[in-house]
């Protein structure tokens, strides 16, 4: 059964401006491993997608409660499909709600990044 859905859209240019205005923001929003892929730093448009994914997850859960950005890292599996590697408060919030699976898809085009999350029992 679907317990929650969430979508979020991020303007990549605005995200980039925010990142360059406040350099510390990057470390606040993302954990070390999720800023990298194959040892290279992720491009900003990909980070924008990961930020959208976190926002979409919060929407799917219904409220942000005491979630922290670092507790919901977005990672890719061996096939390159994205997913959350939840920890701490985010893992507890998800498991408390009876969720057993979280599906995530992301895309970017025309200057925006989008993420869509489905939480399933």
């Amino acid at each position, binding site marked *: 059964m679907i317990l929650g859905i969430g979508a979020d859209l991020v303007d990549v240019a605005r995200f980039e401006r925010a990142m360059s205005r406040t350099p510390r923001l990057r470390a606040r929003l993302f954990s070390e491993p999720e800023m990298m892929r194959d040892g290279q730093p992720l491009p900003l448009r990909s980070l924008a997608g990961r930020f959208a994914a976190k926002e979409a997850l919060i929407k799917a859960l219904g409220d942000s409660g005491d979630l922290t950005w670092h507790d919901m890292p977005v990672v890719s599996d061996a096939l390159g499909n994205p997913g*959350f590697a*939840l*920890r*701490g408060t985010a*893992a507890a919030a*998800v*498991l408390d709600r009876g*969720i*057993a699976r*979280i599906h995530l898809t992301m895309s970017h085009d025309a200057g925006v990044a989008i993420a869509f999350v489905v939480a399933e029992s």
Partner: protein
Amino acid sequence: MREMLVDLEAIRHNIRTLAARVAPAALMPVVKADAYGHGLIPVARAASEAGVAGFGVVDLDEAKALRAAAIVDPILAWLHGPDADFTWAIANHVDLGVGSLEVLERVGIAVRTVNAFAERSGAESRPAIVHLKADTGLGRGGATEEEWRRLVLRAAELQEADEIRVRGVWSHLANASPEADRAQFEAFDRALAIARLAGIAPEVRHIESSASMLTHPEQARELVRVGIAAYGVSPFGDRRPAEFGLAPAMELAGTLVQVKRVPAGHGVSYGHRYVTPSETTLALVPLGYADGLPRSASGRPPVVIRGKRYRIAGTIAMDQVVIDVGDDEVRVGDRAVFWGDPATGAPSVQEWADAAGTIAYELLTKVGPRVHRRYVNGG
């Protein structure tokens, strides 16, 4: 005069056969209950020579016996009493099956104890290695879904603190029906998904055992635990081990200690449940229910002497049984085989199980301490 003969080459053969069958998954023979009655240390040594990913045992006493014999393969122990010494397990590289929050917290305490001493002596601290167990429907050990959610969250916290490392996630089937098996595999996948949400990414997932690895080979994950099949006995009462390329390792035998002619109408053993139909020869063999022969075997179980098959005559007593050999010539000192490898003409342990209304597992694990153990084809 009473002998349990264990062919260690059969053990090695079975391990190699099963390992090839489950590859690329790794094989973990289960050597609990004194290696299903075959003798823990000789069996573990032989299996280790054949190549295993580790041994499954029930409790830490069994793990201690393996370590005391200098067997250094990985070990997983999964049934823990309130007095289980997890500090010993951590110090001796024994993985712990954990199926409840209560046990997980005790493991956490043990790790902190071990590491406090390590810190004092300047040694490196190390996490406890655990395999989290989900109850996917067997109703024995393991966490049901509600506790599972709390168990994996707590395990993730302890892992974050480097106090434990979750090496495995596992479960065990009830073998109730193909439908029930499927439901358990689905529940296992769900438990894994929930564990993943909590940040638990196990190196090995294992739910398969002897029966299911043969009926559901597609469900083998990174590790397969195998018990009865390693000893060359089929997990199914109606299928012979040879169908799976397995050779029974145990032979239970006794020496004829008395042979005599009796007239027709002679009662045999307690209660005279057997009466000789005609003049015949009776042979006495010194094994009874104290040696593991099931007294309940009412179906006149088979025995082989000099390559010929006979049936037990009358009640199985504590120390002896009688065999009616008709007019055949047998002698004191001849060997009577109760069960062994049917390829050698011996009755199968399954025939005895059928006669006693039980399963082969029970008979294998109940051979009494008086029976002399002899191992052949050691490395």
